[in-house]
């Protein structure tokens, strides 16, 4: 068949298909059709409605296969480039409409109730490794400084220690007026910006074969342990521990989990098994991203508590300790006891494994 005849015979069908997928790019076809109506002139409104009449939605897949067939023919018969291009564009658009509808992935509520705690347990070995990398230097530094106070100056520069010391000085705390709500909010913005970014870096550092993650975990463990040890040793116990008690559960868990995600990235690259490295990484990506989501949410929560509760000087320190302990119990119980692995998690795996 000559090109002109081919085009004359099927041109209208292609146009109808083009209109149908252009007017309904997703399952929300009604909405976008309305939008198209409001945007276009009366003439093309008719065209859109006509397309919907000519090509009902359940007809689209069959028509798509037809266009694929025509493209194959056009290529095989060496029809002109412009025609082949046009058909390629149609096929690509159709492919994206038909295969692109993955739908929502269970939603945030579902993820928090079931998926996330189950995921943390499923990947417990990574969580444990990350916790050890983070908490071992933290506890070690803390303990060493109780006996050899000068060790603090080995780990951190003296100016930084002086800075921290001044921040938590009891006189400073008692004399200073209660911080008001607007500076609380400014600090909230800062904590979110800074702390969640640290989580993300912890995770992304895994791409350097895990070295970035290990570095960030050790580094944060060392510096937090040193500061805590130093402040405890010089006796700023109530101001420091009273301040951090509230948000420590969310904050430290967030770091550990983002570290676990980073370690998973690193391990996928180092020990991909019988796959290529990035294929191995991709197949684990749903779990990894799940951990990062969860860690980011926990850190966000921590920033909220840190800005609006931890900084408050009204409640007595005993209450702050109590709240801290309760939040730790809630966090650990949530991760350890709630949630069951849902089919949603495994179906996402399929999508990535393709």
């Amino acid at each position, binding site marked *: 068949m000559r090109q002109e005849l081919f085009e004359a015979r099927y041109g209208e069908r292609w146009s109808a298909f083009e209109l149908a997928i252009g007017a309904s790019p997703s399952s929300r076809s009604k909405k976008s059709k309305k939008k198209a109506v409001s945007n276009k002139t009366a003439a093309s409104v008719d065209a859109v409605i006509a397309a919907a009449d000519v090509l009902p939605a359940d007809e689209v897949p069959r028509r*798509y296969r037809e266009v694929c067939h025509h493209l194959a023919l056009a290529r095989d018969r060496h029809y002109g*480039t412009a025609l082949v291009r046009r058909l390629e564009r149609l096929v690509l658009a159709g492919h994206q409409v038909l295969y692109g509808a993955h739908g929502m992935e269970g939603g945030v509520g579902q993820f928090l109730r079931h998926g996330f705690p189950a995921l943390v347990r499923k990947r417990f070995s990574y969580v444990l490794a990350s916790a050890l990398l983070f908490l071992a230097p933290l506890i070690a530094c803390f303990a060493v400084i109780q006996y050899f106070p000068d060790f603090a100056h080995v780990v951190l520069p003296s100016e930084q220690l002086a800075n921290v010391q001044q921040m938590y000085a009891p006189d400073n705390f008692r004399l200073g007026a209660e911080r008001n709500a607007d500076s609380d909010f400014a600090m909230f913005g800062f904590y979110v910006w800074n702390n969640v970014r640290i989580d993300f870096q912890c995770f992304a550092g895994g791409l350097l074969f895990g070295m970035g993650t290990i570095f960030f975990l050790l580094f944060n463990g060392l510096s937090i342990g040193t500061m805590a040890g130093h402040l405890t040793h010089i006796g700023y116990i109530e101001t420091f521990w009273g301040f951090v008690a509230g948000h420590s559960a969310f904050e430290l868990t967030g770091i550990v989990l983002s570290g676990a995600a980073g370690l998973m990235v690193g391990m996928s690259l180092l020990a991909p098994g019988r796959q290529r490295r990035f294929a191995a990484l991709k197949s684990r990506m749903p779990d990894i991203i799940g951990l990062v989501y969860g860690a980011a949410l926990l850190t966000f929560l921590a920033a909220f508590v840190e800005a609006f509760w931890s900084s408050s000087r009204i409640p007595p320190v005993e209450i702050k300790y109590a709240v801290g302990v309760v939040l730790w119990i809630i966090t650990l119980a949530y991760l350890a006891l709630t949630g069951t692995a849902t089919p949603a998690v495994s179906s996402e795996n399929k999508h990535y494994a393709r």
Partner: protein
Amino acid sequence: MLDTLRTIPTPEGIELTLKVAGPVPRAAAWSIDLMFRLIIVLAVQAVLAALGKVGIGISMLLWFALEWIYPVLFEVLWQGATPGKRQCHLRVLHEDGTPVGWRASVARNLIRAVDFLPFCYGFGLITMLLNRDFKRLGDLAAGTIVVHTERAEKPLAIPSAEPLIPNVSLALWEQRALIDFAERRAKWSDARAAELAAHALPLTRGVSEGETAKRLVRMANYLVGRR
């Protein structure tokens, strides 16, 4: 075949052709996005300055959102393109040619932090140059590609002329070249058309220079089936 074309087999037994985008247009798109984000931050900050410390908090949150959430939201909800990418006619897709989803977009945008190292997308650029699809580390990890979007072109019409049977039997690809020539004829000056037509020597031998292009168009008319 051009080096930047990638073919993806589909279940229909056909191959999709995607044009992968290289570092230069992507850097341009990123710069445009950066400009947009700076404008937003500066504009909002001007307003928020009146709010004092609450304003500082809000602008911190805003900067966080623009840094980490802006690209993800746009890529997933706006046909795979941030405003900058749209300006440069780029689009993010899964490797299989389907529109990018939440998880892949989040992955590729968080790993931006590594691509940016050691400074100004150093790792990202090196990685892009080391693989065929111009993927930065984030793209490799998330399984995404950035492609040029095809702009819908007006169908080119072959100028109609009296059909002429080619005086030499032509292979399929030669016929196709002739049709392409005729389709694009309207875009060239007469001199340029004559220059190109001169390459088809066996078809145009002995024809005066002003007539060669016309002769090829007539043959193309025959080839597409006009009688």
